[in-house]
C-alpha cells in the first residue's frame, strides 16, 4: 500500500519505483473492486429477480432474466387488495414523523442554543441522560396506553412514538451554537420577534443540519419494523416493511412468493435511492454527523 512517494524509494532506480507503485495502485483498485461487487451484487440479484417469473427464478437464480416480465410488479398491486396501500401507509408515517420531529427538535434546539433561562442546563443534562435508555423499555407502557385509547391498528400509534429524538435535538443544538449571535441581534434590531428570528435566521442558516437530520430520521422510520409489528396487525394499516415478509403465493399459500417479495424490496428501496442520488452530500453527512468530532 505504498501509495505515498517514499523518500528512500527515490534513491532506487526509476523503473523499480514505477513497478512497485503500479503494483500497489493495482492492488488497491482490485480490493476496492471486490468490495464493490460484494456490496452491489446482492442488490443486483434483487433487481434481476424482480423481473423473473417465479419458475424462472428457481431455474436461473444467478443471471439476468431470460424472459423479462413485469408480473411481480403487477402482483404487488393485486396482492390482497393492493399492496400499494401499505406503501402509502409507510410514506404517511415516515413523512409525518419526520416533519414533526424536525420542527420539535429545531424549536427546542434553538432555545437551548441561543437563550439563557432558568433550568436550561438541568433540563438539557436530564434529556441527555435518557439517551442511554433504549426505546424498547417504553414498549409495554406505550402499548397499554395506546390500547386504552383504542389506537392499536392506527397510523398515529406508529407515528407518535418516533417524533421526539434527544439525539436529534443534540445534533441540531451543536450546529446552532456555532451560528454567530450577531446575526440574531441584527434581525432583532430590524424588529423581528422571537419566532421570526427562528424562522428567518435560524432555519435558513442551520438548513444543512436540519436536512441531514431529516434524512436520517426518515430512513429510520421508513425501515422501522419492531414497533409496527406490535401495533399494526391489520393489513390496512401495516407499513410495507411489516407486509414484505408475509407475502405468500396466493394460490398455494405458505410458500413465499419470491418474485413479488423481490419487487416489493426493490420498490421499498427506490424512494431512498432517489433521495440519496438527489441529496448525496447531506445523506452521507447525516451518517457521520455526531459520530466524528472535527
Amino acid at each position: 500500500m505504498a501509495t505515498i512517494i517514499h523518500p528512500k524509494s527515490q534513491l532506487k532506480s526509476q523503473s523499480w519505483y514505477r513497478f512497485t507503485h503500479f503494483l500497489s495502485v493495482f492492488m488497491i483498485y482490485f480490493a476496492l473492486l471486490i468490495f464493490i461487487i460484494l456490496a452491489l451484487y446482492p442488490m443486483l440479484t434483487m433487481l434481476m429477480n424482480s423481473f423473473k417469473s417465479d419458475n424462472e427464478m428457481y431455474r436461473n437464480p444467478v443471471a439476468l432474466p431470460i424472459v423479462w416480465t413485469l408480473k411481480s410488479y403487477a402482483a404487488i398491486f393485486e396482492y390482497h387488495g393492493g399492496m400499494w396501500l401499505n406503501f402509502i401507509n409507510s410514506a404517511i408515517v415516515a413523512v409525518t414523523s419526520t416533519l414533526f420531529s424536525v420542527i420539535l427538535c429545531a424549536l427546542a434546539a434553538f432555545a437551548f442554543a441561543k437563550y439563557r433561562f432558568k433550568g436550561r442546563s438541568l433540563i438539557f443534562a436530564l434529556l441527555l441522560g435518557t439517551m442511554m435508555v433504549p426505546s424498547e423499555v417504553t414498549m409495554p407502557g406505550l402499548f397499554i396506553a395506546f390500547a386504552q385509547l383504542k389506537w392499536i391498528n392506527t397510523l398515529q400509534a406508529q407515528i407518535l412514538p418516533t417524533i421526539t429524538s434527544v439525539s436529534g435535538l443534540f445534533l441540531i443544538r451543536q450546529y446552532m451554537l456555532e451560528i454567530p449571535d450577531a446575526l440574531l441581534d441584527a434581525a432583532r434590531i430590524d424588529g423581528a420577534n422571537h419566532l421570526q428570528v427562528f424562522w428567518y435566521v435560524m432555519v435558513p442558516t442551520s438548513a444543512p443540519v436540519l436536512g441531514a437530520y431529516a434524512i436520517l430520521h426518515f430512513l429510520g422510520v421508513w425501515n422501522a419494523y419492531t414497533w409496527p409489528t406490535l401495533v399494526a396487525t391489520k393489513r390496512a394499516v401495516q407499513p410495507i416493511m411489516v407486509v414484505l415478509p408475509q407475502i405468500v403465493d396466493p394460490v398455494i399459500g405458505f410458500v413465499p412468493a419470491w418474485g413479488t417479495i423481490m419487487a416489493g424490496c426493490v420498490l421499498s428501496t427506490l424512494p431512498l435511492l432517489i433521495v440519496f442520488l438527489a441529496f448525496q452530500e447531506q445523506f452521507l453527512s447525516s451518517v457521520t454527523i455526531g459520530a466524528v468530532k472535527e
Partner: protein
Amino acid sequence: MTANSAVVSPSTAIPYKPRKRWGEIIAPYLFISPFLISFILLFLGPAVYSLVLSFFRFAGYGEATFVGVQNYEKTLYYHVFWTQMRNVVQYWVGHAIPLVVLAFLMAVLVNARSVKNKNLVKPLLFLPQLVAAVAAALLFKNFFGTNYGLLNTILGQQIPWLENMDIARWVVIIVIVWRGMAYWFVIFQAGLTSINTEVTEAAIVDGANALQRLIFITIPLMRRTFLFFFVMDAIGSIRIFETPNVLGSNMGGLAPLQMAPVLNLVIDNIRNALFGQAAATSWLLFIFIAFISWMQFRLFRD
C-alpha cells in the same frame, strides 16, 4: 480609609442589571415545551410506567397485583431468556470483529491517495445501507434458499443454510456485516479524513512505510472512532430484531428459539398480555446495555 472603603464596598453598589422583558423570559420555555411535552408523554412517561409495571402482574385490564421483583426473577430463571441471550452474544461477537476490520479496510482503501474517483466509489459502497434491514434479510433468505437459492445453485449442493440453526445463525451474521459495512465504512472514512495530516507527513519524513503508519499512527489516532463503534455496535446488537426474525420465520412471524434474539421475549410477552413480565425483561435489557457501555468506556479510557 476604612470609612472611605465602606462607601464604595460592592455590597452597597447596585450593579446594573437590565430587566428582561416578559416575552424574553417566556420565549425559550415556549420553544422547548412542544418537545418536552411530547418527550414526557411518549418516552419518559411510558418508560417510567414500564418500570412501575415491572413490579406488578398486569394483564392490561382489571387489578394489577404487586409482586415485587418476581418478574425479574422469572425472566432470569427462564431458559428461553438465556438461549436468546446466547444467540445475541453470538451475533455480537460473530459480527463485530469482521465488521470493524472490513469497514476500516474499506475506509483506508478509499482514502488511499491513488484512488482518484472517491466521489464515485464512496456512494457505491454506501448503497447496501439504503436497503432496509427487512428487505436485506429477505434478499439473503432468497440467496441462501435450500432448494432454489442462488448459492446452492452455484455450488450444486443442497446445503440447509437456514434450516440448520447452527448455520442459520452465521447467515444472520453475514447479513448484519453486509449492511453494517456500508454504514461504518462512511464513519471510519470521515474519521480518517479528520486526522491531522502533519503527523502522517512527519512519519513519512522519518521513513515509516504505509503499514507502519497505519498501525502506529492512524489506528491510535482513530481511538475515539473505534470506541464509538464498539459502544454503538454493542448496544445495537442487544436490540437486534429484524434480521434473525425475518430470516428464521415464515410469513412474518417470530424466529424459532435457536435463532431468536432477546427482544423476542419482550414482544412475546406483550402479545400474550404479560405486561409486567415484558416490562421487567425490557428493563433488564437496559441494565445490560448500561453495563456494556460502562465496561467499554472503562476499557478505552485514556
